[in-house]
């Protein structure tokens, strides 16, 4: 029943969890500047969920998070992604048009020319889409891990 790892492993998982989370969020946020992006960052965060799921027992994991949160996150991320794309129609351009770029609004600064350290506040809708995809992948892969874990648990029982 209580299929959990030793205290050392659980402590290490606790220690690593925020680090992985922050690294994943960093990858998502800098998707338009550096290699990576929504999917990669979301996958990194999902490994943190998997790490906790491995270290603790399934019931303990379920006590920490609810599946509903991930379901909402998955659907919400996808809806956000599609909503950003389709909002272009309301603004009179084509779907997936980058209507925020170079407007000076959110993520709307012009990209500086030549080699530069990277300006986070650029990219128009691309960072927003990265965030949407990141949320979606985070939720979806976490759900995959949890469902597979529940499948294994049923077999053990």
């Amino acid at each position, binding site marked *: 029943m209580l299929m959990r790892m030793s205290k050392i492993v659980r402590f290490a998982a606790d220690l690593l969890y925020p680090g992985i989370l922050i690294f994943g969020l960093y990858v998502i946020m800098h998707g338009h500047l550096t290699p990576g992006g929504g999917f990669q960052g979301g996958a990194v965060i999902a490994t943190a969920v998997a790490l906790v799921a491995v270290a603790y027992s399934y019931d303990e994991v379920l006590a920490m998070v609810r599946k509903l949160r991930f*379901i*909402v996150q*998955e*659907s*919400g991320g*996808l*809806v956000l992604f*599609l*909503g950003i*794309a*389709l909002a272009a*129609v*309301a603004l*009179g*351009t*084509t*779907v*997936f*048009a*980058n209507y925020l770029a170079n407007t000076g609004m959110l993520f709307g600064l012009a990209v500086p020319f030549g080699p530069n350290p990277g300006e986070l506040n650029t990219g128009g809708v691309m960072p927003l889409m990265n965030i949407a995809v990141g949320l979606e992948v985070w939720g979806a892969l976490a759900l995959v891990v949890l469902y597979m874990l529940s499948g294994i648990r049923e077999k053990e029982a």
Partner: protein
Amino acid sequence: MIPEFILSNAPALLIGVPLLGAFLSPLIGRLSRDARALWVLAIITLTTLIGYLVAFLAYTKGTLIYVFGAATPALSIPPDSGGIPIRIILTLDALSALMVIMTVTVGFSVIVYSLSSDSRRSGLEAYYTLFLLLIASVLGMFATGDLFNFFVFLEISSLAAAGLVAYKVEKGRAVEAGLKFLMVSAIGGVFFLLAIGILYGQYNALNIAMLAGMIQWTPLDKLALVLIIAALAAKCGSVPMHFWTPDAYSMAPAAVTAMLVVVSQASLYGLFRFCFTLYGLALTYGVIGWALIVLGVLSMVVGVTMAIPQKDIKRLMAYHSVSQTGYMLLGVGVGLAVLGDQALLGSFGITAMEGGIFHILNNALYKGLLFLTAGAIILRIGTSDMNRMGGLGHNMKWTMILFIIGALAIAGIPPFNGFASKFLIYESVFAFNPVLSIIAMVVSILTLASFVKVFHSVFMGPQLPEYADVSEAPGSMLIGMAILSGLVIITGLFPEFFVQHLIAPAAHALADPSGYLAAVLGGA
């Protein structure tokens, strides 16, 4: 009347609306079951209307293109791109428009049917999400003008369809069917992606129109075409790669099976699109044409002979799907075999292609109808084993009538639509090679024979005591079936109208891809 922003963005909305519906349905499903049913119905209605609008635009205005993210929807080649179409481009010509009509029609009736047939299952949030995702991906396969996007939509449709096939997860067999389907799809996807890589490595382009203008028929191109044909022929269930078809079709819920017919025809569309439009300017026609004909004849014969001894009603119908796919491959394959010869093409090639394409539309309608009636029977009596059926005609009169319409149509009995398309195929293929035409007719007779078997063993005979209190299928299921049967009758009674206005433009668009190229590349 219709707002301008819908008119100009219709191709993108065609894919965007069902996707949005799919992603929101789990959230709306948390409110209540009725809210979800209403939401799904609203989304599919909207998709259907947009689909008809897109098809109307494509038929009246010529090939429709839509460029994602460009300043205007038709700006396929931006002035600073050096004459290369760089963005993701949707391209809808007459053939795509016909397929979109078919998809939204079948999709709408199947969803209406599904609202009552599957209303009491668990896990419905995933069911409708996957279903709308499946419809969106099939529409995407028809609409896209980009090789890689086709691959992405192909994979999305495989994943969604595999999930739906294995939906009745409490039966291990459904999961086995889903696994077999997914495995074939995965191998097909790898083949297809390898072909894309080979083409991209040589020509640095992924746009179908752009590639079609450059393709050379080098050994590497030949390899790419062989990989594409093998992958898509496996996905559309042609013999000898049909083994997944009876498994997946028989184990999926009936509404999903009807949609799977459309999905496999999306692969068929891809096969035709790449043979004609992508390779049409470079191909040595005879070999590939004959390859399609051989696959088609094998599918027809093996499919129908394997169907006759089947005992499971949906498995029997699934083998007929394989057999009907053979007709399409035969008709269009004959067109491809004579594509280089203008005289032969004019004399019978175009007619054969019209027959093949008309058969795609007809098959989706009557095959969907037959699977839905089978689903209604299975829902009411709880078994799909025909040995345990009998005498259901006493209690399920409407289902029986709808079944008769579908069965006569698939067997090619006048005046239903199956006869109209088979008539075109027989007569034109006879001019090409009489033996092929005779095989096609014999297969048609065997089809009739096996549906007589189904009809006799399911509906005829005295009322069986165990089915004495079986009631008629629920209303919304009958509505879904009635839509399809009405279309079967209409396309059967007025075939010349459909052929003239819908099928012939599609066949000409397939035979002569210059309009497709010109729309994307700007009069090149």
